């Protein structure tokens, strides 16, 4: 590939930098606003005054919604989804990559097809089934059920298992290992990076999910943070004189775990696995 001349490289860098500022500024502004006693929306408000810094907004949002129990609910919801996806997804991914059984192609094609069914469109029938018929409103199980296996994660697992050398599996078979043993002792330890990618991908979904838990949790003490914060935004912000401080503080609390996890694991958030479906 040609190397660009120096002025062009500089120009490209400046363009990327400008873009990054546009992408990051709202996050910076969120933190600054959450720490100001009365968030300023004038341009001066973007530069925090050290004398004006307070944790009052965090106290206020904690008074309006119990942050600790909301975070625990978010954690249980997310943890349940991750647990389901890892255990059942590894089994499915392994079988789709390594085992020849009748119907394998059909399962794989269905999996690809499902990616284009908009999930939100299933919310009304799922609501009728889970809330009305099974009586699972205001329960963790009802929250987790529609997300219990993440098809993208199954796909990532399959891609990783496909990359492992065939000889490994043949040798294990000759040694008399059964499929469960091969999966747990040989295949899984070799695809640890896939596990991290899958955890990261799976975490984002339920942690950020709003519509589904919003529909099925009416009791405040069962709501994940995204739902309680959204209720605070839509119910309180129209009444309060200056509600933004508390909203921004809540936003920071909701954003922090996902951003921290992502920054820590971003090396594993790679495109090759996701992008295998793009190869034409």
């Amino acid at each position, binding site marked *: 590939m040609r190397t660009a001349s120096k002025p062009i490289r500089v120009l490209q860098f400046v363009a990327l930098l400008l873009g990054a500022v546009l*992408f990051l500024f*709202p996050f910076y502004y969120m933190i600054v606003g959450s720490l100001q006693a009365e968030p300023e929306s*004038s341009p001066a408000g973007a530069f925090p005054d050290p004398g004006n810094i307070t944790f009052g907004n965090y106290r206020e949002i904690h008074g309006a919604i119990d942050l600790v129990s909301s975070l625990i609910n978010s954690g249980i919801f997310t943890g349940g989804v991750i647990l389901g996806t890892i255990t059942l997804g590894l089994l499915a991914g392994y079988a789709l990559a390594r085992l020849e059984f009748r119907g394998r192609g059909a399962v794989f094609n269905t999996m690809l097809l499902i990616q284009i069914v*908009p999930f*939100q469109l299933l919310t009304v*029938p799922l609501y009728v089934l889970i809330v009305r018929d099974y009586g699972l409103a205001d329960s963790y199980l009802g929250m987790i059920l529609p997300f219990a296996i993440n098809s993208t994660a199954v796909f990532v697992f399959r891609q990783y298992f496909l990359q492992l050398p065939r000889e490994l599996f043949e040798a294990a078979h000759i040694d008399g290992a059964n499929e469960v043993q091969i999966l747990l002792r040989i295949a899984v330890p070799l695809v640890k990076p896939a596990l991290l990618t899958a955890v990261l991908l799976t975490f984002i979904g339920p942690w950020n999910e709003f519509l589904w838990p919003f529909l099925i949790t009416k009791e405040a003490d069962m709501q994940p943070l995204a739902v309680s914060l959204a209720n605070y935004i839509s119910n309180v912000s129209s009444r309060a004189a200056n509600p933004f401080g508390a909203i921004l503080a809540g936003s920071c609390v909701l954003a922090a775990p996902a951003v921290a996890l*992502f920054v820590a694991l971003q090396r594993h958030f790679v495109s*090759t696995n996701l992008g*295998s479906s*793009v190869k034409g």
Partner: protein
Amino acid sequence: MTRLLGKQPVGALFVAPYVIFLAAVFAFPLGFAVYMSFHDYFFAAPGAIVDRPFVGFANYAAVLSDAAVRQSFVNIAVFLVINVPLTVALSLVLATALNKAVRARTFFRVSYYVPYITASVAVVGVWLFLFNSNGLVNAILGPLAPDPSWLVNETLAMPTVAIYVTWKQLGFFILLYLAALQNVPKELYESAAVDGAGRFGTFWAVTMPGVRPATTLVVLLATVTGANLFTEPYLLTGGGGPDGASTSPVLLMYQRGIEQGNPDVASAIGVILVVGALLVALIQRRLLERD
């Protein structure tokens, strides 16, 4: 036996939970939605035996004669017309720039992905703060600020939502394009250089055709995401205001189906939306794959 079940039938056992999940969470609800849309379906106490007569296309007729529903489909069209081209253009250009060896590549990647991995509910808070009538954006624009302001302006509310979603989702699409760029053969760039193609010419003649399968996927996924739009108009514009100018079909499904207790009507909206989205996707595919 082998012919009937395959060489390793234990595999069927391994995928069984996943298949049951797909049947219970996708296939059955999808069929159930279609069933509801053709019946007079209403909420009843669990276990109660009630008559839910077949009503043919009555729910569809009710939906299509509802001005609010028609408005929501127009809104989503406005959303897609802004969001999809912007997403394709920006993510392709940013991915191409990121694909080259630039300084601080990790920093750039992280900054572009951060909105995507953050909860919409969390970043909606800061957008509300930025774009309200006294917000920073208007403070900077001064006399150029729109009146009424962005999110309460009938013309600007939906475009503002579309820009928000573009910004929020871009990281994911950059990721897809970065993967696709790995698959463009290096020799093509070399021969373009030999032919004396400029940077723009190379991008047009080599990069764009090289990532065409990814473009098809990006357009499809952006369209599906658009068809799913709910959280953003619900929170950014206070439930689809002003006067329904930013209502999305899914938002109406929620209001008609669950708030007002008409799941049959909501399902009809859903079926129309799915069929519409599939048609749009088919047309896009035809257009993109034509040489």
